[in-house]
């Protein structure tokens, strides 16, 4: 978690306006508030988590990204963050489009289904992968649309979404993703982090 927070924080310029979509218990918000900017909001679907955030004094709205991002005006945030949540939406494409409208830049992080440990489980065990990063069984997972780093990379190119920066994370090792190392990073990273713009 800490590495992901650091990478996200490094992608954000100081004293900018940030929205964390699916902010959970507000850990990332708190981290950014201490390190980068005070002007940060959150959107979260779970009542309990919203209450936890508000208890910490964080400005969070209970709501659903698929229906409630519309209320924010175009480009009203410098950065919109979607941390490991894209796969849980019914319609990830719609959400990405909404994020790109609301934010001048968007940071998306993706638990990589192409990671070799994930692939091996399906290949050798013949069961749906369960890893540290993807701890659910197939029957109780909130993840509806798993994708790989390569899938997201290709998605951005096909939709003409500009990728400013793409970073791969393996344990605590950080590296850049580019066209030439894409296949390798897709195999050897557990998390992909993308800074994109429409």
């Amino acid at each position, binding site marked *: 978690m800490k590495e992901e927070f650091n990478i996200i924080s490094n992608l954000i310029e100081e004293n900018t*306006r940030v929205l964390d979509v699916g902010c959970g218990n507000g850990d990332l918000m708190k981290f950014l508030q201490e390190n980068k900017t005070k002007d940060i909001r959150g959107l979260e679907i779970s*009542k309990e988590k919203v209450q936890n955030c*508000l208890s910490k*004094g964080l400005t969070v709205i209970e709501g659903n990204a698929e229906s409630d991002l519309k209320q924010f*005006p175009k480009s009203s945030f410098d950065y919109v963050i979607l941390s490991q949540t894209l796969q849980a939406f019914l319609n990830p494409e719609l959400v990405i489009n909404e994020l790109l409208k609301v934010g001048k830049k968007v940071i998306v992080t993706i638990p990589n289904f192409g990671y070799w440990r994930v692939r091996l489980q399906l290949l050798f065990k013949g069961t749906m992968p369960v890893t540290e990063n993807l701890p659910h069984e197939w029957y109780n997972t909130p993840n509806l649309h798993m994708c790989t780093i390569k899938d997201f990379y290709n998605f951005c190119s096909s939709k003409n979404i500009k990728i400013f920066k793409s970073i791969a994370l393996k344990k605590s090792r950080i590296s850049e993703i580019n066209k030439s190392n894409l296949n390798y990073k897709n195999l050897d990273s557990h998390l992909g982090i993308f800074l994109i713009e429409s």
Partner: protein
Amino acid sequence: MNKNIDTKKIIISNPLKLDCGKEINNFPIAYETYGELNSEKSNAILVFHALTGDQYVSGKNPITNKDGWWSYVVGENKPIDTNKFFVICANVIGGCMGSYGPSTINESTGKQIGTDFPIITINDMVNAQYELIKYLEIEKLFAVIGGSMGGMQVLQFVANFPDKAKLAIPIACTSSHSAQNIAFNELGRQAIMADSKWENGFYSNYKLNPDKGLAVARMAAHITYLSEKGLQEKFGRKLQDRDSLRYGFEADFQIESYLRYQGSVFVDRFDANSYLYITRAMDYFDLSKQHKGNLSDAFKETKTKFFVISFTSDWLYPTSENREIVIALNSIGADVGFVEIESDKGHDSFLLDVPSFLKTLGDYINSTYKVINERRI
């Protein structure tokens, strides 16, 4: 109501122009305070009361001898801790606990003003209370907070005085009174006015009181403050002090007995004309209409931080209406948090022991106070 209790009171000498066009001056505002104002005057919280509330937020209400109406929220070591905050609450104008209202005695006639009292609005109530804040010499409040009609006053206060509160917490309210809510208020008013003892509002001249009408108004309103599930769980079809039905119109059912009791205790503490005037003020409340149909415009001048709260079982001021406030604030990039609290207790949830509400509210106020103070240093 002619109350012979010492209430804190100031006389506002500045003329106040009301929305109805009339002007009032030299009128009383009754209020109460809890805790102490710190030397920087940075810990003041103005609480706005709801339709039948009063200035006695916490502790013992000297008139009813019951706990203050928001004792779960305000007091020592409560979510709004009076060891830390200076809490102010004023009786709204139109009310009957010492502020200027229809039961105020007209000095020249020696009689109650009755229905010669001018029609007032939420805007008028808020403007009158602002005079109290000026009198207390508080430049900027830490927070304004209130539920139901109190929440409407919170919204109106920030719209009128965009730089006078750092934090605004409207709870279980709306930015414009719905047809359903106007309908319920009209039912209550008609019950009062149908009582032959109402005497066109001049009942006190005849030493009368439209108790029956006011009690019916309260009973009907009380139902709207609860939820179907809450009623069913608490009362069901349970009988009142009897084993079987009596085949008559006495209160066979506990719910009947409960409502009759609610009606009867209410008439001891509340003035029928005040009920007419205050419900009318609520009906007239439409903050977006005040801003040419654009609610966001009401808040475009403000840097006040907002926290909007609604309750799942509140069908009088449902989450959807509270959300409209959030949407209006978001559309202008205001700083707004929002949560809908799970509760079976209906609209009254904000007055009752709902632990997740009390915890979230208290934690939020305290951590925000800390953040705002740290920033200042």
